[in-house]
């Protein structure tokens, strides 16, 4: 194992070659970070253990990368054989030396006027297969880029961006296809997932998240409301090779806060979809928040794990949802196995035996405003959770005791414009606005929360003074890395939650940490502010 890692990291001078078999076995290749979520199971867990509880205090800064953009820096890099590939806003791809940070090349995508990515002109990363990188853009294109030189190989426009569509997530490569989805749920789009041929960029299949008349699920939309039904894809999906299913979380129905114009469950908004990776056919779906009234997208990484479940080994999916509930699903069938609130919530009295929320009347948006927990950012959001097969625990960045006052009003749809039908007042900004933080924790705080997936119960908690939009990473040495809005990057003991190490980086962390090897030495990378920071152990 160690020899393999050494060989792969020494091969840094060679052009990146990542055959599909290598993506399948990414968990056994922890010296590299080969997909956005680390592996197809999206556990944000690394088998590396060279940085551990006894030496983590020697972590020191090795190099930084400065983004040439003032946008939020939400990138998660890939690392392949000593080369790091990352994105900076709005749509640049950079290849650099993972040992020193020195760039090899930059690909700049020129955007036309009038792109409308909701909530920040950001991009979250790239995918790789063989020697080709895949990148999505705000003008709704998918690009194939030669990893050796940053030259574009092909470009496919998946939809007209002028209708409010934009693409922001890292694509997912499965076999010979690259899978992408569209954002724009705040602009009255109809979201979809598309699989393109990796060689040609030609579309192979498309799954419509908002079904059209005659398609299953269209009857969950009253009248013509399906026409602007939303259903974004904000985040990269997962894949189970044995089941050949790819899993994706879908976004909110539109308009966000005026549910009266869209009676029904509004499928397939706020769902996890299990699609056949070859055909895009729906195998099963599970809707977390039917007829969503609060903008609680299922905008989370689908975390796949194999657990002993009531005496038998079971293929499950672990999901802490924006709606404040933690779910365990059978990922072969979609069967609901467990659901528990993981933060304070006031909108549902619980989940029924099928996992459907039992809504409490009067907790949705109103003309005069309705105060409901959680607030609009939810109990958690898009930043990656983690599952450690060693501790058996599921870890999530939780927003605790956080509320919003939800307003509804009437709004007509106009193409390419905001279509949300209301608004939310909250005492906590959705993202950092000021370097000064004086508010008390009574309006909410973030915690790194460890849950036992077999019960949904909390095992430990690391509360922070302010909120956090940082993803999590666990390692085989039982460390947990994360950051926060305050600008700290830190390591906790994954078994106890004890703080072991931290550094103040000043810029807020709105990304997920990764780890990899350079010349046999473990590195940890995190984006904070407008900078990517890379840490490794200092010599004793």
């Amino acid at each position: 194992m160690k020899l393999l890692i050494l060989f792969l990291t020494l091969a840094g001078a060679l052009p990146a070659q990542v055959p599909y078999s290598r993506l399948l076995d990414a968990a056994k290749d922890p010296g590299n970070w080969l997909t956005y979520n680390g592996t197809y199971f999206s556990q944000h867990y690394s088998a590396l253990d060279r940085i551990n509880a006894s030496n983590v205090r020697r972590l020191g800064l090795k190099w930084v990368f400065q983004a040439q953009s003032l946008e939020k820096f939400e990138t998660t890099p890939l690392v392949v054989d000593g080369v790091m590939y990352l994105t900076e806003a709005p749509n640049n791809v950079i290849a650099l030396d993972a040992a020193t940070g020195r760039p090899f090349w930059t690909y700049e995508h020129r955007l036309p006027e009038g792109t409308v990515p909701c909530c920040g002109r950001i991009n979250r990363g790239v995918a790789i297969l063989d020697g080709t990188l895949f990148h999505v853009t705000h003008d709704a294109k998918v690009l194939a880029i030669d990893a050796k030189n940053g030259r574009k190989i092909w470009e496919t426009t998946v939809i007209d961006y002028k209708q409010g569509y934009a693409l922001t997530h890292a694509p997912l490569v499965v076999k010979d296809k690259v899978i992408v989805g569209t954002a724009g749920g705040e602009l009255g789009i109809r979201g979809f997932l598309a699989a393109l041929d990796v060689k040609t960029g030609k579309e192979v299949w498309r799954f419509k998240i908002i079904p059209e008349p005659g398609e299953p699920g269209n009857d969950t939309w009253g009248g013509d409301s399906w026409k602007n039904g939303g259903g974004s894809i904000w985040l990269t999906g997962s894949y189970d090779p044995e089941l050949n299913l790819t899993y994706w979380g879908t976004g909110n129905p539109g308009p966000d806060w005026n549910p009266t114009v869209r009676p029904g469950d509004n499928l397939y908004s706020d769902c996890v979809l299990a699609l056949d990776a070859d055909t895009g056919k729906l195998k099963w779906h599970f809707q977390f928040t039917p007829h969503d009234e609060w903008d609680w997208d299922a905008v989370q990484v689908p975390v796949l794990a194999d657990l002993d479940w009531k005496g038998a080994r079971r293929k499950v999916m672990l999901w802490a949802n924006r709606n404040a509930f933690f779910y365990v699903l059978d990922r072969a069938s979609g069967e609901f196995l467990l659901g528990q609130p993981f933060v304070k919530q006031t909108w549902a009295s619980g989940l029924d035996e099928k996992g459907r929320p039992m809504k409490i009347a009067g907790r949705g948006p109103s003309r005069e405003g309705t105060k409901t927990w959680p607030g609009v950012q939810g109990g958690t959001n898009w930043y990656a959770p983690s599952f450690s097969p060693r501790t058996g625990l599921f870890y999530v960045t939780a927003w605790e005791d956080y509320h919003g006052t939800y307003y509804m009003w009437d709004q007509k749809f106009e193409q390419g414009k905001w279509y949300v039908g209301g608004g939310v007042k909250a005492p906590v900004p959705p993202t950092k606005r000021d370097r000064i933080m004086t508010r008390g924790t009574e309006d909410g705080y973030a915690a790194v929360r460890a849950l036992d997936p077999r019960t949904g119960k909390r095992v430990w908690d690391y509360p922070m003074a302010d909120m956090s939009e940082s993803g999590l990473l666990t390692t085989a040495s039982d460390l947990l890395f994360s950051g926060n809005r305050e600008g700290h990057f830190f390591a906790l003991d994954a078994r106890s939650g004890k703080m072991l190490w931290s550094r103040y980086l000043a810029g807020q962390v709105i990304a997920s940490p990764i780890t990899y090897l350079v010349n046999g030495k473990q590195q940890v990378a995190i984006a904070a502010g407008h900078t990517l920071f890379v840490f490794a152990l200092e010599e004793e």
Partner: protein
Amino acid sequence: MLRIAVSFFLTVAAVTADQESTVTLENPFRTAADRVEGERTFLSQCASCHGRDGRGSGAGSDLTTGTFRRASSDEGLFQIINKGIPGTGMPAIQLDSRSAWQLVTYLRALSKSRNSGALPGDPALGAALFRTAGCSGCHRVDGVGGDTGPDLSFIGSRRALSELKQSIADPQAAVASEYWRLRILTKDGRSFTGRRLNEDTFSVQFRDESGMLRSLTKAELAKYEIIRASPMPLPGAKLAAADIEDLTAWLASRVIK
């Protein structure tokens, strides 16, 4: 360079072009009808984050204070509407130029509309009372006064009448967190009180009673108490109702011109 940046809008906007100097765009749509159109756009495109009243929501900032953090001119507002603000949730709003200018007109009106109209109090009497009652010991106005409490130079632009009146009559009713104070005892026996300036998971920053800026890690602290009560004496108990009206009128007149 600036000419290149704004050339996109030149065809529709009134322009003062000077080959040697900067180009300034003026708002060509400033009538009452434009303001009404601007309000319509505001309610559909802006209110979800900035609130229907424009006073902010957590997601969007308060647009009614008479000053904009990121723009000083109509052109600046126009550019923000069209381009968004990098690094924030403020997106580019897809509007034609006319609609964007009309929105600027509405934003200007929004910030001027607060606290307009006749008030029962006399601002001149209120100003005199402010001087004689010792308020400036804690409050700064036009560069003079203490800084325990809020600077009141432009308070009329930032607060509604009802809030001004309440702050005088009952200072404890709503104390903004940036004015909370703290009391600290360290493990090595030092004690501090002062104005709490900033805090995170690991540390707290404050200004002690002598004016010294201090930062302590929470690991050093034996006791840490946040004092949320206002240190402001209760003038409401000593002031006549007419005095409160006068002070309110004077504070309301302290607006950004």
